């Protein structure tokens, strides 16, 4: 594959192929940053891939008490799904099971979207008739009595149809340790970019997949072209010095946000250098025919 070399790092002349998604942002607040984080972590748990989880979700950023609607510490989380109906279902279930249940929590819309999802409008029924609707100006929220007081929840949350899922970087290195160091540096840089999440564990996925399988009914299977232990046995995409590959998958509220995150990730990997980190950066695509969003690595160089 043709490539450019930046500071001793080989960067493939290829592109990441990404898809349009539906997304929303929620702000979760609590009496302390600890409890806001607790609710946010659990409500974005088991949300790595739409294939098996229904949605992809993660923490966008922490908010100070000055940045939240109710003046308490908070967390902004992002949720992505393939359809509005699925996103609605995921928001309802996750907020209902993980935020409503978390001590002192409250939940607000974190996005001004062209359309909206039901938030408190669905959860209010938990109040069994004791729920109270409040509307001040354009804001509409529900007060649901719970055992530690009241759960305050905005009636609806903004929805965007311009979100992008599946932006990615393939981080290739000599050993598992150096490759992981490079991927960690990239994940840390991407975490600082607003309006994006990297939904996999710590922002990193080690089991990249290809479409299809030799087994009937299995829609995705291991990406053998990037498995170092199969380097000699399959049509590999790896060089003779590649010992480990990690992938970073990025979902963003806008295409620009995904591009900014990929740029930040590449810069962090290049900065770490080939000695301590990765030796090569690539990206995953399906030939460009499946996803409408293409992110060429050569346009995102530091």
């Amino acid at each position, binding site marked *: 594959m043709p490539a450019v070399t930046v500071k001793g790092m080989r960067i493939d002349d290829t592109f990441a192929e990404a898809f349009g998604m539906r997304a929303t942002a929620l702000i979760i607040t609590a009496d302390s940053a600890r409890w806001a984080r607790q609710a946010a972590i659990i409500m974005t748990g088991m949300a790595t891939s739409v294939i098996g989880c229904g949605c992809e979700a993660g923490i966008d950023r922490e908010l100070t008490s000055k940045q939240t*609607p*109710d*003046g*308490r510490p908070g967390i902004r989380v992002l949720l992505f799904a393939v359809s509005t109906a699925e996103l609605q279902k995921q928001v309802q279930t996750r907020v209902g099971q993980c935020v409503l249940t978390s001590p*002192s929590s*409250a939940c607000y819309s974190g996005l001004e979207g062209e359309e909206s999802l039901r938030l408190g409008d669905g959860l209010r029924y938990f109040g069994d*008739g*004791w729920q*109270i*609707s*409040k*509307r*001040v*100006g354009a*804001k509409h*929220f529900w*007060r649901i009595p719970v055992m530690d*007081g*009241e759960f*305050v929840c905005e009636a609806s949350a903004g929805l965007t149809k311009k979100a992008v899922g599946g932006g990615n970087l393939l981080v290739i290195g000599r050993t598992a340790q150096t490759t992981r160091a490079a991927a960690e540096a990239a994940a840390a840089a991407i975490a600082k970019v607003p309006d994006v999440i990297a939904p996999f564990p710590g922002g990193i996925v080690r089991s990249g997949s290809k479409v299809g399988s030799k087994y009937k009914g299995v829609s995705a299977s291991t990406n053998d072209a990037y498995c170092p232990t199969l380097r000699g046995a399959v049509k590999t995409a790896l060089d003779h010095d590649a010992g480990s590959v990690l992938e970073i998958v990025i979902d963003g509220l806008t295409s620009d946000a995904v591009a900014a995150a990929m740029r930040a990730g590449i810069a962090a990997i290049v900065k770490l250098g080939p000695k301590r980190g990765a030796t090569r950066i690539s990206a995953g695509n399906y030939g460009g025919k499946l996803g409408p969003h293409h992110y060429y690595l050569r346009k995102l160089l530091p």
Partner: protein
Amino acid sequence: MTRLTLTLRQRPSQRLDLSPLVPHLLAGKSARQIERIELQTTRHRAAVGEVFRLRMGDAEQICIEGSCERLDYVGREMAGGELLVDGDVGIQAGRLMTGGRLTVLGNAGPWAASGMKSGVLQIAGTAGDRLAGPLPGEISGMRGGIAVVRGNAGERAGDRMRRGTIIIEGAAGPYAGARMIAGTLIVSGGAGPLPGFLLKRGTIVLGSGCGALSPTFVDCGVHQLLANRYMAAMIEHYSKSAARLMRRPLRRLAGDMAVLGKGEIFLGNGTDV
């Protein structure tokens, strides 16, 4: 752009209907057309030009100077823009407002903000009886928007209110928030007897307590609720004292159990009982 100013020449000899003098009805009219608008409520003709001295300007911003309590229906069905009244107004100021900002620097008569739907009404002085309430035969009073009274309000403030927010920085008369269907009524000062009489839903906040309270309100203890703090942040812009009150620990009384009982009265005093 300068605002359109109407200065009262002298105290009118009859009550006047000022409902035609709102921004959306004056938009695009010439000075001559405006001066010909009739305001009389008796058989004696009283045109704008006879009653007021008109200084033309942008009708989006109207100022009425030297107003007195004989000017009724000021800002009725106002849909947008700004209307500033320097002086007192008569009955039904801001009735059925659907938008914009109406500011009265003096006192307002009865039924101010009656049936208001949206927008902002501010009264620097006092408000008469039945603030935001319905006229006889109407099912609901205020339906949205925000009404702020810096002084006291008369009887039955917020009567049959359905939605919206009323803030009274002074004291309220008897039966404050009577028959409320929903919405929020905040009274920083004291309230007369029987607040929330037949309250179905909605919130009444009484900063300095009230006269006799109906026994059909039941004590739910003292709480410092997040929802009230959140409301405080939203009304801070309109009233600092009301926002301060909402952030305090308040005693919650649920009622009126004589009817639906899904409403609440928050008391700012007696929280140590």
